[in-house]
């Protein structure tokens, strides 16, 4: 997809030791607090896991050359998406904003000009994520961008386990015998982008490319995926990565 490859590989069995190690080594207060808040154990049924949907809009696809523009966060559980507890920030990118991405994200120059640096909102953001399982659609944007941006500001990066609704969708449509057969026949692969995936579950078509609406859309998609293909007691370890 658009030439993006996973850059860091963290296998899920490592999460507990990674979190413990970071808890010990972290120097920044906010980061230390983040790693000190325990995550649900890997065998917790998904219905008991407090989650938070996260989406970021960026100026491009490469965390080394592009920057974060906005962040949307919506806490939820398998039962309810709590929109009232949502947070949304526009942040000033360290690199200039291209015209194209302005139109794309519905964010104006003046909004960006007045926006704080990510560093200002970082403590709040980490506090919202702490103790929650983060849910994203396509982790290979959120994870490296956040890690790089935090490393640039606080001298140490932050990684954490995620549920990636896109990879759940890929498991269904890209890795089955049937989908391999389709590919062998030269058929185009089933789209696993956010809106296309949502459509398969009868979810409405939201105006995309707004970090908060996409976070909401991602949370709804996960609820739909679990309802259709998993069970409320599916353990977390079957879902996260």
């Amino acid at each position, binding site marked *: 997809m658009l030439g993006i490859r996973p850059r860091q590989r963290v296998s899920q069995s490592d999460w507990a030791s990674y979190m413990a190690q970071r808890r010990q080594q972290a120097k920044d207060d906010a980061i230390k607090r983040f790693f000190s808040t325990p995550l649900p154990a890997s065998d917790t049924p998904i219905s008991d896991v407090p989650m938070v949907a996260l989406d970021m809009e960026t100026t491009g696809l490469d965390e080394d050359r592009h920057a974060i523009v906005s962040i949307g966060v919506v806490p939820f559980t398998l039962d*309810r*998406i709590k929109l*009232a507890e949502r947070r*949304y920030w526009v942040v000033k990118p360290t690199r200039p904003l291209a015209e194209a991405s302005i139109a794309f994200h519905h964010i104006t120059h003046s909004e960006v000009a007045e926006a704080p640096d990510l560093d200002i909102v970082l403590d709040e953001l980490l506090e919202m994520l702490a103790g929650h399982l983060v849910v994203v659609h396509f982790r290979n944007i959120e994870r490296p961008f956040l890690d790089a941006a935090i490393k640039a500001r606080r001298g140490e990066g932050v990684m954490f386990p995620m549920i990636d609704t896109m990879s759940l969708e890929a498991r269904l449509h890209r890795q089955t015998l049937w989908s391999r057969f389709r590919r062998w026949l030269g058929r185009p692969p089933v789209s696993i982008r956010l809106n296309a995936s949502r459509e398969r*579950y*009868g979810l409405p078509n*939201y*105006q995309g490319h707004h970090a908060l609406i996409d976070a909401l859309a991602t949370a709804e998609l996960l609820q*739909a995926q679990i309802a259709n293909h998993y069970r409320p007691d599916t353990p977390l370890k079957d879902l996260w990565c």
Partner: protein
Amino acid sequence: MDIELLEIRQFMGQFPPFDGLSDELLDVIAERVEVSYFKTGSDILVLNEILNELCFIRSGAVEVYRRQGELYNRLGEGDIFGHFSLLRNHKVRFPAQAIEDTLIYFIPNDVFQRLCEEDDDFADFVELERPRLETVAEQQKKSNDMMVTRIRKLVTRYPVMVEASTTLQQVANQISEAQASAAIVIKQCSGNPRYSFQDSEGQTWRMEGIFTDSDFRTRVVAEGLSPQAAIGDVASSHLITIQSDASVYEAMLTMLRNNVHHLPVIYRQRPVGVVHLSDIIRYETHSGLYLVSNIFNQSSAQGLARLAPDVRAAFVRMVQEGANSQMVGSALSTIGRSFTRRLLELAEAELGPPPVPYCFMVNGSMARNEQSIVTDQDNALVLSDEFVPKQHDDYFYALAKFVSDGLDACGYTYCKGDIMATNAQWRQPLSVWKDYFEDWISNPTPKKLLQSSIFFDLDSIYGEDHFVETLQDLVAKRAAESPLFLAAMARNALNRTPPLGFFRTFVMEKDGKHNNSINLKRRGTAPMVDLIRIHALACGSKAQNTFQRLNDISQTQLLANGVSDKLSYAFEFLCMTRLRHQMIDIQEERMPDNNIEPENVEDSERHTLKDAFQVLSNAQKFLKFRYPMPAQRPRQ
């Protein structure tokens, strides 16, 4: 407002009751919604669970059930549910299940309560049936000026009043001086007879009649009378008046019905003015008045038939201008009656005077004054008992045929059930008619009554009114004391039932099946008329009009408090919806019919229609219970 919630806000704002909310309140909702996804077949609300949120369907479809598991409603995008429980004890009364993959927005109770408090329309919407129907009916009423403006507003000066002994010449002078066009003829009297009043000196006068400009032509000059004759000897004693608090509309109808152009306006028995047709026309330029006077000016059946397009135009105008169903119904009935009357006049002119007295009777919607633009003719002849078939029937058959053919040409199609005076069975002397009614009432079977129930809406239109009045009296007296008859009528009234409501672009039946259109007469107004007729018969009412019947019913203990109001609102709404869709048909150059297509049903109309169907359905259930089949003989 956070721009990020615009998506949610805009979506909800498209649907009632949210479409009428202020931006501020919409913001409050969008800020607070919670969201959840429900897979096809999963429960959204479970009976008796505690509910603290209003549910809004963002996408998908939901079925709501009654406690007994009976389908209550099927809802789609933009619909809400759960409000009944929030308004009561917060326990789920109607469980809900997703029948498609569904996304629900939950609105917390405190927000819901705030909406109810701050927005009356929202509160009306989420309350049970009555208030919404009431609101809609009231709004329709308010929007029509003619219905509320009292006739006294059109009275600008005192009437010219002349004593009966005054000479015609003096009267002519007085009328001219006053620049009036009519004078009221009065005579001293004693006691308190009809049309009597006292002047400022305590003298009692009685209104003897009215004398108009045209009377000078027809009654004086044409007859070669002397200007010195006393007016009391010439004036018509046939006096039609109107009370000063009657509406302009009622005055108009009174003129139409009686074919008069002047109406003395009475305040507490005392004449306070005279209104002329032109006063009303000036006030309300668009009306069926021209049409009716045109009808009476036609000299042939062909001429009458040419007026049919005008009837449609008048109908469209009335509905567009916000007339309510009673106004449209009685105006169209008046037009229909005028056609019939004029045809009878023309028939008599052609065939000669009738050999024995007769009364031309109408049945069905025209008798109820509830005609719509889609109507057939239902009529009969009640003849004097002097009638001798061999001598007279040829005349009356010819008369009936003339009228029936004429009506058909004017757009009042022949009755499919052959309820027409051309049918020998329905062209009978009064004594036979009495036997008919006696037989229907004493030996009723649902099957027999299926055919004849139309005769239980009956009114005289021309000729010896008292023949039909005799029959009306007979029905009113005998029906009320015949439980078997009422039970048989009630059984028939349950043959046609309303649908459950609408779902997306379908009509939804109680068994959950879908249809593409619905005949609103068969499934709404007609069953309503049927059931109200039975209550009216049970309480001995002689009214023919459904609203007047409801009025009579509400004076009794037959129905629980408030039920007749509810029925009245529901009936008004069903009638208006039917009329509005007929108007759309005419505007789109289709043949108007009684069908409505769900895609032409507006959102708010859809909700109110569902309420009206519900009222009808409940009333039908009550009917079954109220008029049970009496056990006639012991079981064998």
